[in-house]
């Protein structure tokens, strides 16, 4: 394979693959690819990455923040979405079944003016176990949609999880936007507690 003297950035190849390039840029990329096997190989790597991310998302095994559009399209694709929406300061009884593809927690909060919002995940005693810092939220949004890992939830024993939305102001101090309690009941066979290592 001849070494490419002007390789295309893999991120640009990613944009090409998902049709996000402007026509002149797309034409330049395509002409290059029709003469360059090295960049073609790199494009195949990017395609494999994109397909892999797509598969992870389809399996519902990622913990992340998503949009309403994302959930709507998932439902249109035939995926089964289980959603819980406890009110701020409130709790909800929840579970997950083998048939569920996506597990969603909708956390209502007034996000206006928040420069940065963290999502803190706590145990039943309210002790923080981990934090998702600077989650993506719309500045004028009214809720955060947490996509919980279905894989993790299906393996989880009966337990309580407390989610807290925390805003940071310009001075660096934190402000609680809302606290939401999920009382998860295991309905699938499995261990009663997380294994200790």
């Amino acid at each position, binding site marked *: 394979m001849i070494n490419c003297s002007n390789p295309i950035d893999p991120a640009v190849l990613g944009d090409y693959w998902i049709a*996000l390039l402007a026509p002149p840029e797309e034409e330049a990329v395509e002409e290059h690819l*029709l003469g360059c096997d090295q960049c073609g190989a790199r494009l195949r790597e990017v395609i494999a990455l*994109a397909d892999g991310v*797509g598969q992870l998302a389809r399996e519902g095994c*990622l913990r992340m923040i998503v949009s309403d559009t994302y959930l709507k399209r998932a439902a249109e694709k035939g995926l089964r979405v289980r959603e819980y929406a406890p009110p701020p300061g409130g709790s909800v009884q929840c579970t997950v079944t083998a048939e569920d593809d996506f597990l969603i927690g909708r956390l209502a909060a007034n996000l206006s003016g928040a420069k940065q919002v963290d999502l803190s995940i706590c145990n039943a005693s309210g002790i923080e176990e981990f934090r998702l*810092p600077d989650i*993506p939220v719309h500045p004028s949004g009214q809720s955060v949609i947490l996509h919980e890992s279905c894989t993790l939830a299906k393996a989880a024993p009966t337990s309580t999880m407390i989610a807290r939305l925390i805003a940071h102001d310009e001075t660096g101090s934190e402000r609680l936007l809302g606290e939401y309690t999920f009382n998860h009941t295991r309905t699938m066979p499995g261990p009663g507690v997380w294994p200790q290592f």
Partner: protein
Amino acid sequence: MYADLKDADLVPLIGFGTDREAEAELFRRMAPRVRLYGLRHLRDEQAAQDLMQQVLITAIEALRAGRLREPEKLASFVLGTCRMTVLDQRRGAQRKERLLQHFGAEFPEITHQPSPRLDHDHLARCVQTLNERERTVIVMTFYDEQTGADVATFLGLSEANVRVIRHRAIHQLRGCMGVES
């Protein structure tokens, strides 16, 4: 001998109309490239395969007839043929059948370069190491195929910002997967 030649060097050899080995070499080189074009535009393996065959037969037919005057413009010429063929595909299959009957048996069988296989669990760990914005952007883009504008609207950012986040995430994932050069 032919493997050492540049793509453009094969054009005049084919133009003489008798060098089947040069044609076969060009076919071997161009086939995976045209297939990628097909995958990108048709999003279907079989359709990409059909496109590849048809484009290369059309291109070699034109090269035999000496219709490409500037060999260094071969990539541009093949790109034009790709575009025309995609348009033709939407019009009908008659020309394809005629070309395949006339030329199809002359060219070598192409073994496709296999797509790279990624370690699924490793990729899952890599995706979880992205920061929250990067993870959301990359999943909305690659799984949901949302446009930059859609993602930007959701996040309350500019499209340029989303592009920066997306590019950073792609580089980080490649690095984490050990494919970033």
